[in-house]
């Protein structure tokens, strides 16, 4: 069921209890986790935090903790599947689910006792009504009850009653079949597309606000959570802009609270500011030139993998009057005179080159003299740490590192994340260039398909879901056509990771049908697949089954 009052029905319920936090591996979940941890520290609510990377992990973690804990909080996992069916909990386990995955499974919506959804109901959910999907069992009993009654009637009247009874029974069965067919249709419509709702970090920030315990750190984490949804293309532009406006109200509120003419804050205090900044990834921590070359938006607009594209870039820079020497330097070392009006200058020139959206609404943070970060910088850095392909790090190790990087006291970790992010972006750029230049992208009818063989440089980097998805989107933008599926080989396990993304368009509603498509294709070909990721559009498949799976997918989607 949906929780109406997050303070009364969630926070006060867990206030004197011990809780298990099960957190999914994405940046929004990490931010939501930080906010919740801060709140729990405030009120001394004891908890145990367990990172979970997929459904199997979730199941294991639940089994390990179910004896000792009654309350489970799931962050960015659990809403889109029948949780009670999957975990088979005892009657006294209670699950609080704050998850951006949609559609929310109907069982989760209509369960009154054990599942509590920390999701806003006005969030464009389209949940089918109860009567359309659930049928009371009494009606079945009525049938048999009537029959047995009628069976004891005296034989004289029996024939007439029997006919009536038979007719009524046939009628009931027909109605039931009709109802079931309609139910299947409704459920199919409801469940066919996967998409995302409001950021989990924003939900928990709202909780903090309602409790008047919100701090600037929590606000910053909420902003990062929202930005993660935008960077990884999980929400529509409109939703992003709406949510930015919500965050802006909070930012103004926080900024007005502390500063006035007499008491100005020390330079070390944290300041969050609204920025209408450039869409050049990590540009303030890199050189402008590298950032332009490795940002998806600019690279695809110029088509920088072609010679023509390179030329256009040089023209673009010349048009703005930016000397190459300056532009290749570290951003912080660029001349002040150039940096001053940089954004406006770039915006003007970009319009001439067909890049209308070079600027985007976002937020930046500023503490101490050296530390300035944009929200997107934080997202890229933390994502790179989360999915870093170090040999010795298990997935929980990287989770911990990424979680640490979100604290302001771990600036070094954040900087190392930024360096990793740069490498990742360069790797993506190079892979895209080579895929396009060597024609690795195949058209399979209803979708484009690209397969990275083992031995491709950086293939280990792309065996992680977020990096792979980014690569996909980049490739798709570069190709700008239909929907896209992508496979990456993981040699050790003999499996392929497949990601499917919907067609690219300005007004796309970001709804992904690949989840259901993958399921059906796997079923119909009995391919050995592992649907372990919380995002249903990412699966693992045995290498040998790849071709028949693809064939089934093509038939399904044509």
């Amino acid at each position, binding site marked *: 069921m949906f929780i109406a009052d997050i303070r009364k029905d969630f926070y006060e319920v867990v206030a004197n209890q011990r809780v298990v936090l099960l957190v999914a591996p994405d940046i929004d979940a990490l931010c939501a986790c930080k906010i919740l941890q801060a709140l729990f520290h405030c009120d001394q609510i004891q908890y*145990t935090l367990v990172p979970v990377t997929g459904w199997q992990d979730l199941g294991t973690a639940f089994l390990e903790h179910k*004896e000792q804990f009654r309350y489970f909080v799931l962050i960015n996992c659990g809403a889109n599947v029948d949780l009670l069916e999957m975990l088979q909990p005892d009657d006294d386990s209670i699950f609080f689910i704050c998850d951006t995955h949609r559609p929310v499974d109907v069982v989760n919506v209509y369960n009154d006792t054990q599942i509590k959804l920390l999701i806003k109901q006005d969030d464009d959910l389209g949940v089918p009504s109860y009567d359309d999907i659930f049928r009371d069992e009494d009606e079945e009993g009525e049938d048999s009850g009537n029959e047995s009654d009628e069976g004891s009637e005296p034989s004289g009247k029996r024939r007439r009653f029997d006919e009536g009874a038979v007719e009524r029974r046939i009628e009931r069965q027909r109605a039931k079949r009709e109802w079931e067919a309609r139910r299947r249709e409704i459920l199919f419509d409801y469940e066919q597309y996967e998409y995302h709702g409001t950021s989990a970090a924003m939900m928990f920030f709202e909780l903090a606000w309602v409790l008047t315990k919100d701090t600037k750190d929590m606000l910053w984490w909420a902003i990062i959570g929202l930005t993660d949804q935008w960077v990884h293309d999980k929400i529509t532009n409109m939703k992003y802009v709406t949510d930015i406006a919500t965050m802006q109200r909070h930012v103004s509120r926080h900024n007005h609270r502390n500063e006035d003419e007499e008491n100005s804050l020390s330079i070390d205090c944290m300041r969050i500011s609204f920025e209408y900044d450039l869409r050049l990834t990590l540009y303030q921590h890199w050189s402008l030139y590298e950032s332009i070359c490795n940002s998806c938006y600019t690279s695809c607009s110029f088509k920088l993998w072609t010679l023509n594209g390179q030329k256009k870039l040089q023209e673009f820079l010349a048009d703005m009057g930016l000397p190459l020497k300056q532009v290749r330097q570290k951003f912080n070392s660029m001349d002040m005179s150039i940096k001053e009006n940089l954004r406006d200058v770039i915006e003007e020139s970009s319009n001439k080159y067909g890049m209308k959206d070079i600027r985007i609404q976002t937020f930046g943070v500023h503490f101490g003299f050296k530390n300035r970060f944009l929200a997107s910088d934080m997202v890229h850095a933390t994502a790179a740490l989360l999915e870093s392909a170090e040999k010795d790090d298990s997935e929980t190790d990287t989770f911990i590192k990424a979680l640490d990087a979100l604290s302001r006291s771990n600036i070094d970790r954040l900087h190392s994340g930024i360096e990793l992010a740069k490498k990742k972006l360069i790797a993506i750029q190079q892979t895209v260039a080579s895929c396009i230049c060597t024609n690795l992208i195949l058209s399979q009818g209803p979708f484009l398909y690209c397969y990275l063989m083992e031995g491709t440089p950086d293939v280990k980097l792309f065996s992680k879901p977020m990096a792979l998805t980014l690569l996909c989107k980049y490739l798709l933008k570069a190709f700008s056509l239909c929907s896209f599926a992508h496979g990456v080989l993981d040699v050790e396990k003999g499996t392929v990771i497949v990601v499917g993304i919907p067609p690219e368009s300005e007004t796309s509603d970001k709804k992904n049908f690949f989840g259901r498509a993958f399921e059906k294709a796997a079923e119909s070909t009995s391919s050995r697949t592992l649907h372990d990721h919380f995002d249903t559009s990412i699966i693992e498949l045995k290498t040998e089954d790849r071709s028949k799976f693809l064939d089934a997918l093509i038939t399904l989607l044509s």
Partner: protein
Amino acid sequence: GGLCLHRENEAKSEGRAELIPSIKLRHCCLLRNQRCVTAYLYDRLLRIRALRWEYGSVLPANVRFHMCAEELQWFSQYKKSLASFMRSLGGDEGLDITQDMKPPKSLYIEVRCLKDHGEFEIDDGTVILLKKNSQHFLPRWKCELLIRQGVLEHVVS
């Protein structure tokens, strides 16, 4: 000292005075060795005393393996002495001064598990599973021992 003198006198009386420097030298060496051994044993003693503060009153088997019987006995006497001292503080209940070695900043702390430790019981009987890389928010006094042993790490944010 006494023995040396005795031997010296013997040497003198037997008319073999040229042996006296050798005797003195040998004696100095013996004394020095005795001092070294005593210093070593004393250092061990100080470390064993520190073990009580670090590990608590039950020593792990691998530590006990390296101690001789007399040292174990000394340890147990030290334990008793410390316990009766602690009982004498703080009125009727006594005061456990081996807790909170540094002034605590908060009642509950966030800890991260560095290695798989299995189940861990806290005061009210509930059991927490300490799995590698899980994080927990627990009362400080329960965690101190495990932090000292390196199983948990205090997370400061």
